[in-house]
């Protein structure tokens, strides 16, 4: 059975010199959470906007395959695309403070999603909005419907955004750093809510984040992005058990994940920043920051398959450095 969302060879460029996304492939299955993880500037948000057809002015999208529920999205007109958005595929954003229109009530903004896609009365739409607000854990939903965004806290606004995204029972929810702008305690609540909703509604979630802690809690599958490319893709278990791209390992070394790092050991860091990749760039985008790079990294990068469903793009073959890792772990135990 094919995946709900299939993306192959997605490319996005904003001007003629640089490419923000360089051939990204992702597949999101029904009911699973797929995390797209990477540093800021790696192209993960742009990829998600490109999938939704929400690129800012001047953004050009090409793809070898871009299908949702088997339907090709590439040739779809803006009008046809807008029929899908908010209905079968919904999206929430990083900035809950500014993502709601300050001039309209919560109720009006929620109701228009349903009336747009399903028709029906405004009254019925408001009823559904109220019940969804209750579902996302907002007390006194009837009162909230009449309120304006500025009267709500950031956490509440993000709950409203989630409830609004659920108005038409979408099959796919794209969540672009949904908790980054929120307090840590609120973050946890929102993430728990997303997990509950997914279980209940059989929702597929494409979660964009830079936080590996969130990935560890939420993900079924993970795609690691670097400089506009997916460098490694695996199930969450496989990725944390056997990270295979030097960048993934670098990332994991930066984060204290219980059980993988000993108390008192120094956290790692990756020197340098994500480069801007010029058009026509060849080879591995990570090679300037990679301690293991050699001359061959400037050439074509092979895709290695470590196990079924676990692939990474690197010259190093599966199993590289694992002895060294093992020895380090042993040494730390001793």
């Amino acid at each position, binding site marked *: 059975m094919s995946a709900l969302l299939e993306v192959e060879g997605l490319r996005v460029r904003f001007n003629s010199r640089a490419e923000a996304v360089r051939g990204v492939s992702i597949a999101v299955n029904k009911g699973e959470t797929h995390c797209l993880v990477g540093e800021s500037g790696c192209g993960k948000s742009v990829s998600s906007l490109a999938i939704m057809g929400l690129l800012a002015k001047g953004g050009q999208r090409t793809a070898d395959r871009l299908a949702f529920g088997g339907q090709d999205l590439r040739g779809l007109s803006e009008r046809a695309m807008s029929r899908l958005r908010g209905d079968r595929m919904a999206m929430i*954003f990083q900035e809950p403070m500014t993502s709601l229109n300050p*001039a309209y009530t919560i109720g009006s903004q929620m109701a228009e999603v349903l009336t747009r896609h399903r028709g029906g009365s405004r009254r019925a739409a408001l009823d559904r909005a109220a019940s969804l607000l209750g579902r996302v854990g907002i007390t006194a939903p009837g009162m909230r419907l009449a309120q304006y965004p500025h009267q709500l806290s950031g956490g509440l606004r993000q709950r409203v955004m989630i409830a609004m995204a659920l108005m038409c029972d979408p099959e796919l929810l794209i969540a672009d750093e949904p908790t980054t702008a929120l307090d840590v305690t609120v973050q946890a609540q929102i993430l728990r809510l997303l997990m509950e909703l997914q279980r209940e509604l059989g929702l597929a979630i494409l979660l964009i984040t830079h936080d590996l802690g969130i990935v560890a809690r939420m993900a079924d599958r993970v795609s690691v992005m670097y400089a506009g490319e997916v460098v490694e893709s695996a199930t969450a278990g496989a990725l944390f058990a056997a990270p295979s791209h030097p960048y993934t390992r670098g990332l994991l070394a930066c984060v204290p994940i219980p059980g993988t790092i000993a108390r008192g050991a120094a956290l790692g860091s990756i020197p340098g920043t994500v480069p801007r990749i010029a058009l026509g760039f060849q080879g591995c985008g990570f090679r300037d920051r990679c301690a293991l790079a050699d001359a061959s990294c400037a050439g074509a990068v092979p895709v290695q398959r470590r196990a079924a469903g676990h692939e990474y793009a690197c010259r190093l073959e599966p199993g590289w450095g694992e002895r060294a890792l093992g020895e380090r772990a042993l040494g730390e135990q001793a």
Partner: protein
Amino acid sequence: MLIFIARRLLLAVLVTLTVLTASFALTRLSGDLAISIAGPQATSEDIEIIRKAYGLNRPVVVQFGDWVVSAATGDLGRSYLYHEPVARLIAARMPTTLTLGLCGLVVALGIALPLGILAAMREGSLMDRGIMMVAVVGQAMPTFWLGLLLVIIFGLKLGWLPISGADEWDGFVLPAFVLGFSAVPALMRLTRSGMVDALASDYIRTARAKGLSRAAIVLKHAARNAAMPVVAVAAVQLGFMLSGSVVIEGVFALHGVGYLAWESISKNDFPVVQAVVLFLAVIYIALTVLADMLNAFLDPRLRTQ
């Protein structure tokens, strides 16, 4: 909200009082009124008679107090020229000027809003640049000259519209257009920049993510937020248009308040000048208060505080 309204009204009253003083001072301090009224041929006895007859021999403070008190009770004095109460003169001329101003506003908004929105939607395109060029050109056009040109074209060459006067509705077409056109550049720039900002905002991305139609995105979500500065400036522009009617009514020989003022100025009929200045200022002040209220109504952040 109530405090906001109260403060706004207090400010309006203070401004009105100041303008009242200024318009009085204007006619007293810039020369000897009696000499101006009497005209160049008058002897010094004539001037003395006039001074007594109009009460100009009293101390300035007394004259001022007198004027303020009577102005507050709606008595704006009597015209030297028409020998009629000024209030009645203004009331008789007001419908013409008000019609002209409101039609002008409709014309201005009717041109500025669609073009401004269109330019913002196609920001940076050839159409955007073309529309902004209209604004620059419009700003450079002397209104009275544009009026004369249109009279020649539509009144004389094509014969579609009357050359002057407004006995029928069609007499208002050209003056209203010219008056409105003078307010187009400012309103259009503002509409465009407001819409450009609004269209680039996060809530528009949300609206798109919800799959709303293009019309709903632009006209409902963006325009509502771009409207607030436009409302404020539209009110100000209407005020400017009413005082700009002096020129337009002169060009088209429309007998409104502006024409009355011009006539009174040329014939040294100072009670009328004083009153019209005050009257137009009060209308302007009222319009800005109205715009603030309208904005408070449009912006829930102001309304609910």
